[in-house]
Protein backbone atom coordinates (compact mmCIF):
# COMPACT_ATOMS: atom_id res chain seq x y z
CA UNK A 1 0.00 0.00 0.00
CA UNK A 2 1.18 3.51 -0.74
CA UNK A 3 2.04 5.86 2.08
CA UNK A 4 -1.08 8.05 2.09
CA UNK A 5 -3.39 5.06 1.83
CA UNK A 6 -1.69 3.59 4.87
CA UNK A 7 -2.05 6.94 6.60
CA UNK A 8 -5.78 7.03 5.91
CA UNK A 9 -5.96 3.46 7.14
CA UNK A 10 -4.79 4.67 10.57
CA UNK A 11 -1.17 3.48 10.37
CA UNK A 12 0.95 5.44 12.87
CA UNK A 13 4.19 4.68 11.07
CA UNK A 14 2.69 6.25 7.96
CA UNK A 15 1.64 9.32 9.97
CA UNK A 16 5.20 9.68 11.17
CA UNK A 17 6.64 9.34 7.65
CA UNK A 18 4.13 11.83 6.28
CA UNK A 19 5.23 14.43 8.82
CA UNK A 20 8.84 13.87 7.74
CA UNK A 21 7.93 14.33 4.07
CA UNK A 22 5.96 17.49 4.85
CA UNK A 23 9.11 18.79 6.55
CA UNK A 24 11.72 17.74 4.00
CA UNK A 25 10.14 17.22 0.62
CA UNK A 26 9.15 20.60 -0.76
CA UNK A 27 8.28 19.13 -4.13
CA UNK A 28 5.65 16.76 -2.82
CA UNK A 29 4.33 18.84 0.08
CA UNK A 30 1.47 20.27 -1.92
CA UNK A 31 0.46 16.88 -3.35
CA UNK A 32 0.35 15.41 0.17
CA UNK A 33 -1.78 18.29 1.44
CA UNK A 34 -4.15 17.75 -1.49
CA UNK A 35 -5.14 14.50 0.19
CA UNK A 36 -4.95 15.55 3.84
CA UNK A 37 -6.25 19.09 4.01
CA UNK A 38 -9.88 18.28 3.15
CA UNK A 39 -9.86 15.75 6.00
CA UNK A 40 -8.58 18.22 8.57
CA UNK A 41 -10.29 20.98 10.52
CA UNK A 42 -12.06 18.89 13.12
CA UNK A 43 -9.42 18.96 15.83
CA UNK A 44 -9.30 21.50 18.62
CA UNK A 45 -5.92 23.23 18.49
CA UNK A 46 -4.22 24.53 21.62
CA UNK A 47 -1.01 26.54 21.43
CA UNK A 48 1.38 26.73 24.37
CA UNK A 49 4.00 29.44 24.37
CA UNK A 50 6.24 31.24 26.84
CA UNK A 51 9.86 31.93 27.73
CA UNK A 52 12.50 29.16 27.73
CA UNK A 53 12.15 26.85 30.69
CA UNK A 54 8.80 28.24 31.84
CA UNK A 55 7.36 24.72 32.00
CA UNK A 56 5.62 24.38 28.63
CA UNK A 57 6.49 20.70 28.21
CA UNK A 58 5.67 19.81 31.80
CA UNK A 59 2.29 21.51 31.46
CA UNK A 60 1.63 19.89 28.08
CA UNK A 61 2.28 16.49 29.64
CA UNK A 62 -0.32 17.16 32.36
CA UNK A 63 -2.84 18.56 29.92
CA UNK A 64 -2.41 15.52 27.68
CA UNK A 65 -3.22 13.16 30.54
CA UNK A 66 -6.29 15.18 31.43
CA UNK A 67 -7.54 15.16 27.84
CA UNK A 68 -7.09 11.40 27.69
CA UNK A 69 -9.11 11.00 30.88
CA UNK A 70 -11.93 12.86 29.17
CA UNK A 71 -11.61 10.42 26.27
CA UNK A 72 -10.00 12.68 23.70
CA UNK A 73 -7.08 11.57 21.52
CA UNK A 74 -4.07 13.86 21.41
CA UNK A 75 -1.40 14.88 18.91
CA UNK A 76 1.49 17.04 20.02
CA UNK A 77 4.03 19.04 18.04
CA UNK A 78 6.91 20.36 20.14
CA UNK A 79 9.31 22.79 18.51
CA UNK A 80 12.85 23.54 19.63
CA UNK A 81 15.39 25.89 18.04
CA UNK A 82 17.92 24.96 15.38
CA UNK A 83 21.45 26.21 15.95
CA UNK A 84 22.09 28.96 13.40
CA UNK A 85 25.76 27.97 13.29
CA UNK A 86 25.59 24.24 12.65
CA UNK A 87 22.04 23.65 11.44
CA UNK A 88 21.75 20.98 14.11
CA UNK A 89 19.28 20.93 16.97
CA UNK A 90 18.85 19.36 20.36
CA UNK A 91 15.20 18.50 20.75
CA UNK A 92 14.58 18.04 24.46
CA UNK A 93 10.84 18.49 24.92
CA UNK A 94 10.20 14.74 24.96
CA UNK A 95 12.28 14.52 28.10
CA UNK A 96 9.44 16.14 30.09
CA UNK A 97 6.60 14.57 28.17
CA UNK A 98 6.82 10.94 29.05
CA UNK A 99 3.62 10.67 31.06
CA UNK A 100 1.69 9.10 28.18
CA UNK A 101 4.47 7.31 26.35
CA UNK A 102 2.63 3.97 26.37
CA UNK A 103 -0.72 5.41 25.30
CA UNK A 104 -1.27 4.57 21.62
CA UNK A 105 -3.77 7.44 21.34
CA UNK A 106 -1.08 10.03 22.01
CA UNK A 107 1.35 10.96 19.26
CA UNK A 108 4.21 13.33 20.01
CA UNK A 109 6.55 14.72 17.41
CA UNK A 110 9.52 16.99 18.09
CA UNK A 111 10.46 19.41 15.33
CA UNK A 112 13.44 21.71 14.91
CA UNK A 113 12.48 25.23 13.86
CA UNK A 114 15.12 25.11 11.09
CA UNK A 115 15.87 28.76 11.73
CA UNK A 116 12.36 29.85 10.88
CA UNK A 117 11.40 32.83 13.04
CA UNK A 118 8.20 33.10 15.00
CA UNK A 119 8.62 30.18 17.37
CA UNK A 120 7.44 27.44 15.01
CA UNK A 121 9.03 25.74 12.02
CA UNK A 122 7.72 26.38 8.54
CA UNK A 123 6.32 22.86 8.40
CA UNK A 124 4.60 23.01 11.79
CA UNK A 125 1.16 23.99 10.43
CA UNK A 126 1.41 21.14 7.90
CA UNK A 127 2.40 18.65 10.59
CA UNK A 128 -0.66 19.82 12.54
CA UNK A 129 -2.81 19.25 9.48
CA UNK A 130 -1.45 15.70 9.33
CA UNK A 131 -2.35 15.00 12.98
CA UNK A 132 -5.76 16.56 12.41
CA UNK A 133 -6.46 14.51 9.27
CA UNK A 134 -5.25 11.42 11.12
CA UNK A 135 -8.17 11.98 13.49
CA UNK A 136 -6.63 13.40 16.63
CA UNK A 137 -9.30 15.19 18.70
CA UNK A 138 -6.93 17.74 20.21
CA UNK A 139 -3.65 19.06 18.87
CA UNK A 140 -1.24 20.78 21.21
CA UNK A 141 1.61 22.78 19.79
CA UNK A 142 4.49 23.85 22.01
CA UNK A 143 6.55 26.69 20.62
CA UNK A 144 10.23 27.37 20.96
CA UNK A 145 10.94 29.20 24.22
CA UNK A 146 10.27 32.71 23.06
CA UNK A 147 11.89 35.83 24.36
CA UNK A 148 11.22 38.58 21.97
CA UNK A 149 10.13 37.65 18.49
CA UNK A 150 7.10 37.64 16.32
CA UNK A 151 4.71 34.97 17.35
CA UNK A 152 3.14 32.58 14.90
CA UNK A 153 1.42 30.34 17.39
CA UNK A 154 -1.82 32.33 17.41
CA UNK A 155 -1.99 31.74 13.66
CA UNK A 156 -2.29 28.01 14.13
CA UNK A 157 -4.26 27.58 17.34
CA UNK A 158 -7.85 28.06 18.40
CA UNK A 159 -6.74 28.82 21.94
CA UNK A 160 -3.34 30.26 22.81
CA UNK A 161 -1.99 29.71 26.31
CA UNK A 162 0.85 31.99 27.39
CA UNK A 163 2.98 30.60 30.19
CA UNK A 164 5.00 32.89 32.43
CA UNK A 165 6.79 32.31 35.71
CA UNK A 166 7.27 34.56 38.75
CA UNK A 167 10.98 34.79 37.93
CA UNK A 168 10.42 35.65 34.27
CA UNK A 169 9.48 38.41 36.62
CA UNK A 170 8.85 41.48 34.87
CA UNK A 171 5.48 41.55 33.23
CA UNK A 172 6.57 44.53 31.17
CA UNK A 173 8.96 42.15 29.43
CA UNK A 174 6.07 39.92 28.46
CA UNK A 175 4.22 42.92 27.09
CA UNK A 176 7.17 43.97 25.03
CA UNK A 177 7.48 40.48 23.59
CA UNK A 178 3.90 40.77 22.38
CA UNK A 179 2.83 37.85 24.53
CA UNK A 180 -0.08 39.68 26.13
CA UNK A 181 -1.78 40.36 22.80
CA UNK A 182 -1.89 36.77 21.68
CA UNK A 183 -2.93 35.21 25.00
CA UNK A 184 -6.40 33.74 25.31
CA UNK A 185 -5.39 32.32 28.67
CA UNK A 186 -2.49 33.52 30.82
CA UNK A 187 -0.83 31.05 33.15
CA UNK A 188 1.61 31.85 35.91
CA UNK A 189 3.46 28.56 36.28
CA UNK A 190 5.78 27.55 39.12
CA UNK A 191 3.31 29.01 41.60
CA UNK A 192 5.04 26.78 44.14
CA UNK A 193 7.70 29.46 44.16
CA UNK A 194 7.68 32.84 45.80
CA UNK A 195 6.13 35.89 44.20
CA UNK A 196 3.57 34.06 42.07
CA UNK A 197 0.54 35.78 43.59
CA UNK A 198 2.00 39.23 43.26
CA UNK A 199 3.00 38.51 39.68
CA UNK A 200 -0.46 37.19 38.82
CA UNK A 201 -2.03 40.32 40.29
CA UNK A 202 0.28 42.45 38.17
CA UNK A 203 -0.73 40.56 35.05
CA UNK A 204 -4.41 41.03 35.88
CA UNK A 205 -3.89 44.75 36.05
CA UNK A 206 -2.26 44.73 32.64
CA UNK A 207 -5.09 42.66 31.19
CA UNK A 208 -7.60 45.09 32.71
CA UNK A 209 -5.87 47.99 31.04
CA UNK A 210 -5.57 46.27 27.69
CA UNK A 211 -8.05 45.62 24.96
CA UNK A 212 -9.70 42.29 24.50
CA UNK A 213 -12.32 40.73 22.32
CA UNK A 214 -15.94 41.27 23.30
CA UNK A 215 -17.01 38.51 25.65
CA UNK A 216 -13.63 37.05 26.49
CA UNK A 217 -11.24 38.66 28.91
CA UNK A 218 -8.08 36.54 29.14
CA UNK A 219 -8.07 34.94 32.59
CA UNK A 220 -4.88 34.78 34.65
CA UNK A 221 -4.31 31.48 36.46
CA UNK A 222 -1.65 30.39 38.91
CA UNK A 223 -0.57 26.77 38.63
CA UNK A 224 2.27 24.46 39.42
CA UNK A 225 2.61 22.06 36.53
CA UNK A 226 5.27 20.16 38.45
CA UNK A 227 3.14 19.67 41.59
CA UNK A 228 -0.10 19.40 39.63
CA UNK A 229 -1.85 22.16 41.55
CA UNK A 230 -4.27 24.67 40.07
CA UNK A 231 -4.48 22.67 36.87
CA UNK A 232 -8.24 22.03 37.13
CA UNK A 233 -8.80 25.75 36.82
CA UNK A 234 -6.82 25.73 33.60
CA UNK A 235 -8.79 22.81 32.14
CA UNK A 236 -12.02 24.66 32.93
CA UNK A 237 -10.83 27.83 31.22
CA UNK A 238 -9.70 25.90 28.16
CA UNK A 239 -13.13 24.33 27.85
CA UNK A 240 -14.77 27.68 28.47
CA UNK A 241 -12.74 29.27 25.69
CA UNK A 242 -13.70 26.40 23.40
CA UNK A 243 -17.37 27.10 24.17
CA UNK A 244 -16.84 30.80 23.63
CA UNK A 245 -15.34 30.17 20.19
CA UNK A 246 -18.17 27.85 19.25
CA UNK A 247 -20.65 30.73 19.63
CA UNK A 248 -21.59 33.29 17.02
CA UNK A 249 -19.26 32.01 14.32
CA UNK A 250 -16.19 33.13 16.25
CA UNK A 251 -14.16 30.04 15.43
CA UNK A 252 -14.99 30.38 11.75
CA UNK A 253 -13.88 34.01 11.80
CA UNK A 254 -10.68 33.15 13.61
CA UNK A 255 -9.89 30.40 11.13
CA UNK A 256 -10.59 32.72 8.22
CA UNK A 257 -8.10 35.22 9.58
CA UNK A 258 -5.62 32.38 10.01
CA UNK A 259 -6.32 31.16 6.49
CA UNK A 260 -5.44 34.55 5.11
CA UNK A 261 -2.19 34.64 7.02
CA UNK A 262 -1.37 31.08 5.89
CA UNK A 263 -1.87 32.07 2.25
CA UNK A 264 0.34 35.11 2.73
CA UNK A 265 3.06 32.95 4.23
CA UNK A 266 2.84 30.43 1.41
CA UNK A 267 3.07 33.27 -1.11
CA UNK A 268 6.17 34.53 0.67
CA UNK A 269 7.75 31.07 0.42
CA UNK A 270 6.91 30.75 -3.25
CA UNK A 271 8.27 34.17 -3.96
CA UNK A 272 11.52 33.34 -2.19
CA UNK A 273 11.75 30.19 -4.29
CA UNK A 274 11.25 32.27 -7.42
CA UNK A 275 13.96 34.71 -6.40
CA UNK A 276 16.45 31.89 -5.96
CA UNK A 277 15.53 30.71 -9.43
CA UNK A 278 16.05 34.19 -10.83
CA UNK A 279 19.50 34.24 -9.31
CA UNK A 280 20.30 30.87 -10.88
CA UNK A 281 18.85 32.15 -14.13
CA UNK A 282 21.28 35.02 -13.94
CA UNK A 283 24.18 32.55 -14.16
CA UNK A 284 22.49 30.78 -17.04
CA UNK A 285 22.08 34.17 -18.73
CA UNK A 286 25.85 34.76 -18.56
CA UNK A 287 26.57 31.34 -19.97
CA UNK A 288 24.01 31.70 -22.75
CA UNK A 289 25.15 35.19 -23.80
CA UNK A 290 28.61 33.83 -24.30
CA UNK A 291 27.29 31.01 -26.44
CA UNK A 292 25.16 33.40 -28.47
CA UNK A 293 28.23 35.61 -29.05
CA UNK A 294 30.12 32.55 -30.23
CA UNK A 295 27.23 31.71 -32.55
CA UNK A 296 26.71 28.34 -30.86
CA UNK A 297 23.07 29.09 -30.22
CA UNK A 298 20.75 31.79 -31.57
CA UNK A 299 19.01 34.26 -29.25
CA UNK A 300 15.54 32.80 -29.65
CA UNK A 301 16.68 29.33 -28.62
CA UNK A 302 18.59 30.83 -25.68
CA UNK A 303 15.51 32.73 -24.52
CA UNK A 304 13.53 29.51 -24.77
CA UNK A 305 16.04 27.77 -22.51
CA UNK A 306 15.76 30.54 -19.93
CA UNK A 307 11.98 30.39 -20.02
CA UNK A 308 12.15 26.68 -19.31
CA UNK A 309 14.38 27.26 -16.36
CA UNK A 310 12.17 29.98 -14.89
CA UNK A 311 8.87 28.19 -15.16
CA UNK A 312 8.03 26.77 -11.78
Amino acid at each position, binding site marked *: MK*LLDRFLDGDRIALSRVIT*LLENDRNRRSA*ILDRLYPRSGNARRIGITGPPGSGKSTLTDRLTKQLRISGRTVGIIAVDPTSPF*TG*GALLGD*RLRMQGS*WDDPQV*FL*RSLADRSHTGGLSEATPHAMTALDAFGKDVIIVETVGVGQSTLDVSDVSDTTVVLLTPESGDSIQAMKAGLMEIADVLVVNKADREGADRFAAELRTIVDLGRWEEGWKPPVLSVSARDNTGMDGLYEKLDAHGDYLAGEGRLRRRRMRQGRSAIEKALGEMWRGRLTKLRDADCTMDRLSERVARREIHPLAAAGELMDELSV
Partner: protein
Amino acid sequence: MTDNIRVLVAKPGLDGHDRGAKVVAGALRDAGMEVIYTGLRQTPEMIAEAAVQEDVDVVALSILSGAHMTIFPRVMDLLRERGVDHMLLTGGGIIPKSDGDELAKLGVGKLFGPGTSTRDIIAYINEEVARRRVADEI
Protein backbone atom coordinates in the same frame (compact mmCIF):
# COMPACT_ATOMS: atom_id res chain seq x y z
CA MET B 1 26.15 14.73 3.47
CA THR B 2 22.55 13.69 3.92
CA ASP B 3 20.16 16.45 4.98
CA ASN B 4 18.43 16.67 8.35
CA ILE B 5 19.55 13.41 9.86
CA ARG B 6 17.43 12.65 12.91
CA VAL B 7 18.90 10.71 15.81
CA LEU B 8 17.27 9.44 18.98
CA VAL B 9 19.74 9.39 21.87
CA ALA B 10 18.65 7.44 24.92
CA LYS B 11 20.12 5.97 28.03
CA PRO B 12 18.36 2.70 28.89
CA GLY B 13 18.54 0.99 32.23
CA LEU B 14 18.36 2.15 35.79
CA ASP B 15 22.04 2.68 36.40
CA GLY B 16 24.21 5.69 36.53
CA HIS B 17 24.35 8.99 34.78
CA ASP B 18 23.82 10.23 31.25
CA ARG B 19 27.01 12.26 30.84
CA GLY B 20 28.26 10.13 27.94
CA ALA B 21 24.89 10.24 26.19
CA LYS B 22 24.77 14.03 26.55
CA VAL B 23 28.26 14.47 25.10
CA VAL B 24 27.32 12.38 22.07
CA ALA B 25 24.01 14.22 21.69
CA GLY B 26 25.84 17.56 21.72
CA ALA B 27 28.46 16.38 19.22
CA LEU B 28 25.81 15.11 16.81
CA ARG B 29 23.94 18.40 17.10
CA ASP B 30 27.15 20.27 16.34
CA ALA B 31 27.57 18.04 13.29
CA GLY B 32 24.25 19.43 11.99
CA MET B 33 21.97 16.61 13.06
CA GLU B 34 18.59 16.87 14.78
CA VAL B 35 18.93 15.02 18.04
CA ILE B 36 15.97 13.91 20.11
CA TYR B 37 17.18 13.48 23.62
CA THR B 38 15.01 11.40 25.93
CA GLY B 39 17.34 11.02 28.88
CA LEU B 40 17.70 8.44 31.59
CA ARG B 41 15.82 5.27 32.51
CA GLN B 42 14.37 4.47 29.11
CA THR B 43 12.89 1.02 28.62
CA PRO B 44 13.26 -0.71 25.23
CA GLU B 45 9.53 -0.14 24.69
CA MET B 46 9.85 3.59 25.35
CA ILE B 47 12.79 3.76 22.96
CA ALA B 48 10.99 1.97 20.15
CA GLU B 49 7.86 4.09 20.64
CA ALA B 50 9.86 7.31 20.53
CA ALA B 51 11.74 6.11 17.45
CA VAL B 52 8.45 5.54 15.63
CA GLN B 53 6.87 8.87 16.56
CA GLU B 54 10.03 10.83 15.84
CA ASP B 55 10.73 8.95 12.59
CA VAL B 56 14.45 8.95 13.28
CA ASP B 57 17.19 7.65 11.02
CA VAL B 58 19.26 6.46 13.95
CA VAL B 59 18.65 5.08 17.42
CA ALA B 60 21.76 5.55 19.55
CA LEU B 61 21.91 3.94 22.98
CA SER B 62 24.43 4.45 25.71
CA ILE B 63 24.73 1.28 27.78
CA LEU B 64 27.25 1.11 30.58
CA SER B 65 25.52 -1.42 32.79
CA GLY B 66 26.69 -4.49 30.91
CA ALA B 67 23.11 -5.21 29.88
CA HIS B 68 23.88 -4.71 26.19
CA MET B 69 23.19 -8.34 25.29
CA THR B 70 19.61 -8.02 26.47
CA ILE B 71 18.82 -4.41 25.57
CA PHE B 72 20.11 -4.22 21.99
CA PRO B 73 18.36 -7.42 20.83
CA ARG B 74 15.14 -6.35 22.56
CA VAL B 75 15.13 -2.90 20.92
CA MET B 76 15.99 -4.49 17.57
CA ASP B 77 13.02 -6.86 17.93
CA LEU B 78 10.67 -4.02 18.82
CA LEU B 79 11.82 -1.95 15.84
CA ARG B 80 11.33 -4.93 13.55
CA GLU B 81 7.89 -5.60 15.03
CA ARG B 82 6.91 -2.05 14.14
CA GLY B 83 8.38 -2.34 10.65
CA VAL B 84 11.01 0.34 11.18
CA ASP B 85 14.13 -1.80 11.16
CA HIS B 86 15.57 0.32 8.35
CA MET B 87 16.61 2.58 11.23
CA LEU B 88 20.23 2.24 12.28
CA LEU B 89 20.53 0.89 15.82
CA THR B 90 23.90 1.80 17.23
CA GLY B 91 25.42 2.87 20.51
CA GLY B 92 28.27 2.85 22.92
CA GLY B 93 29.49 1.21 26.06
CA ILE B 94 32.02 -1.30 27.20
CA ILE B 95 31.20 -4.06 24.78
CA PRO B 96 33.54 -6.98 24.07
CA LYS B 97 34.22 -7.67 20.42
CA SER B 98 32.60 -11.11 20.53
CA ASP B 99 29.37 -9.56 21.86
CA GLY B 100 29.51 -6.91 19.14
CA ASP B 101 29.88 -9.60 16.50
CA GLU B 102 26.91 -11.48 17.85
CA LEU B 103 24.76 -8.34 17.93
CA ALA B 104 25.82 -7.50 14.36
CA LYS B 105 24.29 -10.81 13.28
CA LEU B 106 20.98 -9.57 14.67
CA GLY B 107 21.20 -6.42 12.60
CA VAL B 108 22.66 -4.08 15.20
CA GLY B 109 25.12 -1.55 13.76
CA LYS B 110 28.64 -0.75 14.83
CA LEU B 111 29.10 -0.15 18.58
CA PHE B 112 31.60 2.30 19.98
CA GLY B 113 33.79 1.86 23.02
CA PRO B 114 34.66 4.55 25.54
CA GLY B 115 37.12 7.09 24.22
CA THR B 116 35.94 6.79 20.61
CA SER B 117 36.30 10.09 18.81
CA THR B 118 32.89 11.58 18.12
CA ARG B 119 34.20 12.27 14.62
CA ASP B 120 34.23 8.53 13.91
CA ILE B 121 30.66 8.18 15.15
CA ILE B 122 29.52 11.09 12.99
CA ALA B 123 31.24 9.70 9.89
CA TYR B 124 29.70 6.27 10.49
CA ILE B 125 26.19 7.71 10.93
CA ASN B 126 26.47 9.84 7.79
CA GLU B 127 27.57 6.88 5.75
CA GLU B 128 24.94 4.49 7.07
CA VAL B 129 22.03 6.91 6.78
CA ALA B 130 22.91 7.74 3.17
CA ARG B 131 22.74 4.02 2.45
CA ARG B 132 19.59 3.26 4.42
CA ARG B 133 17.20 6.08 3.58
CA VAL B 134 14.15 4.79 1.79
CA ALA B 135 12.11 6.70 -0.76
CA ASP B 136 8.37 6.58 -0.18
CA GLU B 137 5.78 6.42 -2.88
CA ILE B 138 2.95 8.64 -1.76
